[in-house]
């Protein structure tokens, strides 16, 4: 049983927005809706520092495919569901567009598709990963900062974009890091799954 997730090496992300654009193009995300976004966090003062001693990083935010997704819990029809591969998906045929899942998401990453009148979000490119491919935001990452894999097998096995003719492996490619440098978005009981690696800077927002 897989448990797919993303890991982003924030020290490699250059904020090029290639992941956002690639996601838009592949998934035909409507204008005004976003299945992922690259936020610039900062510039914030370094701990104990004085201006202009600042730091910043780029943070890719999207559905976190949580361990305990609140969106699934509040869905009245079972349209929002957790698949066996650990991803959270939406069955559009069942969605009634009540938007309670939108309200229940602590990251606000769900959108109402006004044409189809159903809620949408990042699918982790389900159609691609089911056939062994990488999510588009990973395969198109210009900074080679994003990695996709199965948490059951450990983050060392996570794979990134192709470098030449084969995918990079996180354990081979990443600069040294420690466990306390791996973060998640704030947790309000949903247990977000995606991981963010940030070295030599303060993680903002906390792990609530």
């Amino acid at each position, binding site marked *: 049983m897989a448990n797919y997730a993303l890991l982003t090496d924030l020290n490699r992300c250059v904020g090029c927005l290639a992941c956002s654009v690639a996601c838009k193009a592949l998934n035909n995300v409507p204008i005004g809706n976003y299945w992922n976004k690259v936020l610039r966090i900062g510039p914030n003062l370094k701990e104990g520092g004085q201006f202009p001693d600042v730091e910043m990083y780029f943070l890719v935010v999207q559905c976190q495919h949580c361990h305990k997704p609140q969106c699934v819990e*509040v*869905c*009245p029809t079972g349209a929002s569901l957790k698949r066996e591969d650990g991803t959270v998906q939406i069955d559009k045929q069942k969605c009634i567009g009540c938007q309670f899942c939108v309200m229940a998401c602590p990251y606000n990453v769900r959108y109402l598709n006004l044409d189809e009148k159903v809620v949408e979000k990042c699918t982790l490119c389900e159609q691609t990963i089911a056939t062994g491919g990488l999510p588009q935001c990973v395969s198109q990452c210009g900074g080679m900062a994003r990695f996709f894999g199965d948490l059951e097998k450990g983050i060392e096995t996570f794979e990134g974009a192709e470098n030449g003719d084969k995918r990079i492996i996180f354990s081979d490619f990443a600069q040294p890091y420690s466990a306390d440098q791996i973060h998640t978005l704030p947790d309000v009981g949903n247990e977000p799954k995606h991981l963010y690696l940030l070295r030599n800077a303060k993680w*903002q927002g906390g792990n609530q």
Partner: protein
Amino acid sequence: MEVMWSLIIFTLFVCISAGSFAVQGIYAILGKQAKLQLPVLIIAFIALVIGGVGSFTHLQHWERAFNGFGHITSGITQELIGVILMVVAMLVYFVSMRKKESVPKWAGVLAVVISCLMIILMTTSYMMPARPIWNSFVLYLFYFAEAIVFGGAITWIVSDVVKTDNTKIIASRAAAIGATLVVTLVLVYLVVFSSAGFANVGYYYDPTQPTKAILDVNNIFGSVLAGENAIYFWLALLAGGLIPAIFALVKCKDGASGISFGSIALVGALVGGVSFRVLLYVLGYSAFLYF
């Protein structure tokens, strides 16, 4: 977040319905039988229907509503069960009212219990850790207090219309107690506004909204008291609580005209109720509010 008027109508009218029904239940328990029971029961039923229809209008695909509907952990499913139970309780109450000259006490207890249950179910569906402003026990108390104001004010007005003077004092006292609680709870909600646990990332920039100002999570309290959201807060406090409280407190001793004073309390409670709900939506940011 965007103001969802359908859900505002739902929560407002459920409070009206539950409050009216519960106050009738209290009359039945106290043995105060009067001509007002049937008209107020009809008002409670109509309010429930308006609330239910209002809730239905926010569904984008209402035709799929019963296609697999019923995921029990969902607040919407629980609300639907609550509405059905309340309709059944109203029917039972109606039948018991028609069978005997007086409504039996058990029916009164049933009305109070079901009304409380409906408010609990409705509020629970908005208890989301993802929305720190909503996720407070104070919201339960607020909706209960508001239901008491609505129930008291409506019964006060109907007492005047059907000319049952002996029921006015209890009704206006209920409105006074409820409105005083509303004032207190709106003020208590200031603590919720100021202590809500939003993630704070300091300075940030969202390239998809380049001209949007940075959201200052530390200034929510200020925006409520004297900023862009102050109008909703002060309307909720003054129109929704203080004005009904003053009119009901001053007039509850002498059984004053419900059509005059009860109407003022009811209109105030409606305006305040809508304002408070709009405030909840305007400040209904997600815990991580930067996406």
